[in-house]
């Protein structure tokens, strides 16, 4: 067995060689200087890893979600452990991944990411960690289906805990589109020439491909005629007024009646409905479900992060966040008593099985990412 040599031993050996005459004075001092320089250069970066035990950085979507986390999880966690939580925000998973990629290990610790696609993406980039589940007893309250799907890509272990879920269904202005018409046409409404100039869409390649697969009668997790899918995306592009790029923009376009129909995130439509807008929401057959997770990045202080995850999975915290962002928590309704408000959220599954939702199949979609995201970038711009 080899034993790792510490710096003091290294110095003693070097000094011994100098005193024995194996090294001349110039080389001895030169090597000491080089060691000092190396220490000076690495210290600013190493501090993130060393300081992590005193603080944990969390990055999320900001707004009411961050406020709920701060009140119900971060502050009690700091009071109990003395570990400070640095709360950062990001505008999107892609932007956050770029920041993580440019950072040093340990600089970012926990992120509120979309699963399972991003979970696999981070794992493929060697950014995943391995959680000690014994330190997260509240994980036992989470819907098993959401946990199992995260285990597969990481060989049975977890690098994240599921936190909430929702759907990307169809939002429509009921002043112009009836419930009957929506249920009859479903995803085809997004390529209905009758609504040219009043159709919107998320400018994200996975969602566009998923809905185009539905429009061409294909299984989104096993597309056979990809040319037909690109044609459907082109048809949608030519009828669309705008590709939206954020939840706020989606809400603005619907509320201002710039568009009458688009795919939309269930929680955002609920927020619009709560504001009094007559916006309908419909999950078409084969519609898209997703989950969000709390991902722990490689190089993070694991015991501290695991304890924070446990705080965040406390029933009270998870429900407060769910009510704030209008997405059901990942807590299993068979094990935890949820509030009436949570039970009324769109996409909420009282059975706790999520059997009725369709998710991205990670191996399939992550394998297509490089090719399809690039092709969509071109199709989106008129090619």
């Amino acid at each position: 067995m080899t034993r790792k040599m510490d710096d003091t031993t290294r110095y003693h050996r070097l000094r011994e060689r100098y005193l024995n005459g194996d090294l001349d004075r110039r080389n001895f001092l030169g090597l000491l200087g080089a060691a000092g320089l190396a220490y000076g250069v690495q210290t600013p970066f190493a501090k993130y890893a060393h300081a992590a035990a005193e603080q944990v950085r969390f990055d999320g979507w900001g707004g009411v979600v961050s406020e709920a986390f701060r009140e119900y999880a971060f502050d009690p966690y700091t009071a109990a452990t003395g570990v400070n939580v640095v709360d950062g925000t990001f505008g999107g998973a892609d932007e956050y991944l770029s920041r993580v990629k440019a950072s040093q290990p340990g600089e970012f610790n926990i992120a509120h990411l979309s699963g399972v696609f991003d979970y696999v993406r981070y794992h493929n980039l060697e950014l995943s960690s391995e959680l000690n589940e014994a330190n997260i007893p509240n994980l036992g309250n989470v819907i098993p289906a959401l946990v199992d799907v995260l285990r597969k890509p990481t060989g049975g272990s977890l690098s994240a805990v599921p936190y909430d879920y929702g759907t990307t269904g169809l939002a429509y202005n009921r002043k112009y589109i009836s419930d009957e018409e929506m249920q009859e046409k479903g995803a085809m409404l997004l390529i209905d020439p009758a609504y040219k100039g009043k159709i919107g869409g998320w400018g994200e390649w996975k969602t566009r491909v998923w809905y185009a697969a539905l429009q061409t009668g294909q299984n989104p997790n096993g597309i056979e005629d990809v040319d037909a899918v690109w044609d459907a995306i082109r048809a949608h592009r030519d009828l669309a007024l705008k590709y939206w790029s954020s939840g706020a923009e989606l809400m603005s376009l619907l509320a201002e009646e710039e568009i009458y129909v688009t795919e939309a995130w269930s929680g955002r439509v609920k927020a619009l409905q709560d504001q009094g807008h007559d916006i309908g929401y419909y999950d078409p057959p084969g519609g898209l479900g997703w989950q969000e997770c709390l991902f722990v990045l490689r190089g993070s202080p694991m015991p501290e992060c695991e304890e924070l995850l446990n705080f965040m999975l406390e029933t009270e915290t998870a429900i407060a966040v769910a009510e704030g962002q209008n997405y059901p928590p990942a807590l299993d309704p068979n094990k935890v008593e949820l509030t009436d408000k949570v039970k009324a959220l769109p996409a909420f599954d009282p059975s706790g099985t999520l059997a009725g939702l369709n998710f991205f199949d990670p191996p399939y979609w992550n394998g297509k990412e490089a090719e399809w995201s690039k092709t969509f970038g071109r199709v989106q711009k008129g090619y």
Partner: protein
Amino acid sequence: MSVETREARQPWILLSPALSAVALLLFVPLAFIAVYSFWLRTATGADQVGFYLDNWAEALIDPFYRDILLNTLKIAAITTLVCAVMGYPAAYFIARSKGNKAILLLLLMLPFWISYIIRTMSWINILGVSGAVNWVLTGTGIVDEPIQMLYNQTTVILGLVHFLLPFMVLNVFVSLDGIDTTLEDAANSLGATRWQAFLQVTLPLSLPGLAAGGLLCFVLGAGTYITPLVLGGPRDAMFANLVFEAIITQLNWPLGSALSLMLLAVLGALVLLYNRYLGMAQLMKGLG
């Protein structure tokens, strides 16, 4: 050390903080970007270190990038022209106004106190279906249904003009303010009409300012990505949007690096041309 040697070193010593900042914040990052442009993105999104010309071949040969680049230059050129036509009279008015010049200049700077993104998004409340213009048009019975005005190339140019007009006005103002007004009087006394005096005396003398403003508007306009994102439709992307997509959405830093260097080269060539024929001094005056 001789006095001559010391004197020769002094400017470099004084310049060293600025030179260090330029080297560290501009040339070193640029060198990183240049190195990155020769790497490759693997299927998982990780970078493959090496010396590959694939990104450059794609960026230079693929007509997709060429077309978007040409469209970007076209939008920047139209924006610059509109800024010149709108900005020159405003700058002339400020330069020739008596007494309230400072207030007018302050008003010109006022938009800079508000975030560029907020200013861009304000057009949604003005030109949107439920916006101010449609509210007036439908309220007064001029139209029955709101007019769709947003999310096209025109609104992208409008947003850019809104953003860039102060740069044009400031540059032209600096140029006009430095012209001796008695020259116009002299032209008038020699029989020229006011219009002729303007065309043959004032306008030629103010051309350096107009060119400096034009260069700034063009370069800033060609490099923007927020405006087409907020005010453009599906087909109104500009070249900087491609860089953003390559780096952020596709996590293809090597290709994004090649594309950003390509844009830098095109705009840099323009700046060099400007410097060759007009010099940078006027631009510095305008920025100062």
